[in-house]
């Protein structure tokens, strides 16, 4: 029964947020973009609202958080009551504070990682498609070979070799992820390089770098942006999986994956505490996926 009430409440909240966000965006958007938002499905407006909320929390985290990130403020596992609105964790740190800082760290790192993977992967992928011939064949075969190694295990291996600072974490996951981006960027670019305007630019004598930057990249953005959203979620989940396996973000830095992990045994007893960070992860991935979905739908040009 509780589950049903909870689900109903969640659904209602979803609608309220979605409708409100859509209304807000419609009002605030510049005139040219108004139709974009008017058409937006509820899922997308909800997604945008959630993402904005996360970004705000991430940016203003230190101002919002009632306590310090690693500050031990009381006993362990305090119940949900003021001043610890979401209780405390196993070391007696404020759960709400940890969640807020977690947004900053986890989202920030996932974003940096995805961005890096995209810069490297898409430039190399487009370059391979543009170069064609054996250069393309060899890089693609090599990337295929790397992709045949399971991502999680490959990341584990690399992290064990290079250690687990935030920087190596970002570099390693970005490297593993870049192979996937490479493949997508290459196939998208292959569709673009056969276009007459690329031929025209080549015949004009443009350099490869300019071809990539001015001619191909702008046209490959739509699928790449959609993929960015999905990849972002994947990175997010792989970081939490790595945290689960003990190689994620270092303490006392708050990170949602580790927070779930730390409190995982409590799930066995139906304790809600580990649900919070897991829910935070899920909510953001759902939101990103909703928005990506909407973007893909728009890009595909399919109307009703």
């Amino acid at each position, binding site marked *: 029964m509780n589950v049903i009430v909870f689900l109903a409440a969640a659904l209602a909240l979803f609608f309220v947020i979605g409708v409100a966000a859509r209304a807000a965006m419609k009002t605030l958007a510049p005139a040219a973009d108004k139709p974009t938002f008017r058409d937006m499905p509820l899922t997308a407006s909800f997604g945008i609202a959630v993402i904005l909320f996360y970004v705000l929390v991430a940016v203003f985290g230190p101002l919002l958080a009632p306590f310090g990130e690693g500050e031990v403020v009381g006993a362990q596992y305090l119940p949900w009551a003021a001043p610890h609105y979401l209780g405390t964790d196993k070391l007696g740190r404020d759960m709400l504070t940890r969640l807020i800082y977690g947004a900053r760290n986890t989202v920030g790192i996932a974003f940096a990682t995805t961005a890096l993977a995209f810069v490297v992967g898409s430039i190399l992928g487009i370059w391979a498609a543009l170069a064609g011939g054996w250069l393309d064949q060899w890089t693609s075969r090599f990337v295929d070979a790397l992709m045949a190694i399971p991502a999680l295990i490959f990341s584990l291996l690399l992290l064990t070799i290079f250690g687990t600072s935030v920087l190596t974490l970002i570099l390693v996951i970005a490297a593993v992820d870049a192979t996937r981006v490479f493949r997508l960027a290459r196939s998208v670019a292959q569709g673009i390089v056969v276009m007459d305007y690329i031929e025209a630019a080549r015949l*004009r*004598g443009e350099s490869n770098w300019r071809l990539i930057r001015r001619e191909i990249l702008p046209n490959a953005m739509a699928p790449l942006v959609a993929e960015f959203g999905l990849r972002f979620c994947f990175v997010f989940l792989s970081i939490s999986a790595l945290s689960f396996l003990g190689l994620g973000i270092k303490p006392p830095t708050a990170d949602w994956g580790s927070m779930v992990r730390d409190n995982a045994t409590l799930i066995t007893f139906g304790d809600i505490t580990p649900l919070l960070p897991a829910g935070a992860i899920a909510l953001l991935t759902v939101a990103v996926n909703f928005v990506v979905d909407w973007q893909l739908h728009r890009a595909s040009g399919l*109307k009703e």
Partner: protein
Amino acid sequence: MEKKVLLAIKGLQIEGRSGDAWHPIVKGVDLTLHKGEVLGLIGESGAGKSTLGLAAMGFARDGCRISGGTIDFDGIDLRAASEAERRSLRGKRIAYVAQSAAASFNPAHRLVDQYCEAPVVHRVMAREKAEADAVELYRRMRLPNPEEIGFRYPHQVSGGQLQRAMTAMAMACRPELIIFDEPTTALDVTTQIEVLAAIRDIVRQFGTAAIYITHDLAVVAQMADRIKVLLRGSEVEEADTRKMLAEPREDYTKSLWAVRSFARPEQPPATGTPIVSVRNVTAGYGAINVLTDVSFDIHARRTVAVVGESGSGKSTTARVITGLLPPRKGEVLFNGKPLPPGFSARSRGELRQCQMIYQMADTALNPKLRLRELIGRPAEMYLGLKGKALDDRIRDLLSLIELEPDKFIDRLPGELSGGQKQRIGIARALAAEPQLIICDEVTSALDQIVQEGILKLLSRLQDELNLAYMFITHDLATVRSIADEVVVMQQGVVVERGPKAVLFAAPKEEYTNLLLSSVPEMDPDWLNRLLAARGEPA
């Protein structure tokens, strides 16, 4: 001869969706069709021809809706009928033949399976009977090997044969009405003849009523009893075919009729060193030679039209000249000096001299760049223009192609019409200040009136800027109006070449003759005469 009315459309209104708003596509059109009658629907792109044709089946494409008027098919109100009722009519009593048979046959199934689908699903006949019937109809459509052609997949059958197979498929349930939506537009002229003849015959044999949609007046003249002219969703006029051809009432109709009147004045004979000289070029991809021993010259201020059907090697010739495809044998001389075979080995100066305009302006212009950069880039690159000088040059170019600089300079290609896009393609080529422009089917994707404008512009620019054109086309009408010299190609070989006047007046080669005679003429009897002349059944 008063026949029974089969289809009566009154005050039909259809709307299309863009974003949240609905805008009209068809604005209150009336249409009456009698049993066994063929009505030609003609108009330029955006006139609402196809939409109207589909509405005759009670069908609106995704993103469209029928918002007003009535559609009465043999006493059935198609708007009021349920979807299931409409479905039971489609394919059974009203059939449809699409523009591109290659795209409209499902690539996953054999022809005969697709043929049998409608008769079997609509319970008109059993599968075995339908298969036998298919062979019969294939025979009547004069398809080769009617016994076994049905067991092929669409990709194994040529375009002209597919179009006939599709007509046969439409006939499967012996419908009372067929909608032909530009059925020969995608075909080569020589193939078009066969398909037109086959369609006309079968429609007559079964006494089927038809709506024949096309933009090609000469074609509709052969097929239709009556012609209705549409413009932007409204009717312009309607009349019997002969009357319409002889004395069009409306200005718009007249302008359609007049399109082919443009002709570039005769030029003096060519002299001096040719700008481009193609010498004994053999080239190809993989193991196949697409071009064999091709030679011709292009002189300054002259237009050389390279003519041929699809697969004749016209575009490959252009790729050899531009250096995209280095030839296996032979060479390309530019002002008497050999050009490096590959474009990447050519100097900027060499690249600049030879510019290209493409068939599909949509794919030839980077949709993410503004006109300023699209046009300005060659000027910036080749001529080193910057800042104010560059801006002035871009504005000059826009003026030259008759687009208002202030209005257009910061637009994206997506905000332009088809003709405007093609003009930008021209401006981009001009920006490099070349000696030669290769025009690859530059007008074939455009409506006739727009084509006319582009041709006039090209002609004017040629005079003003001393340009040489290599004009690749399959459209002989275009050749007639703009070319100085003609090169006829077939299967990678130059069949015949010479000055336009000489070649058109007295073609030496049989193929040239076939090509020239296959171009439809604006005479309802042209097809009959041609078929009779060729000794085929009329």
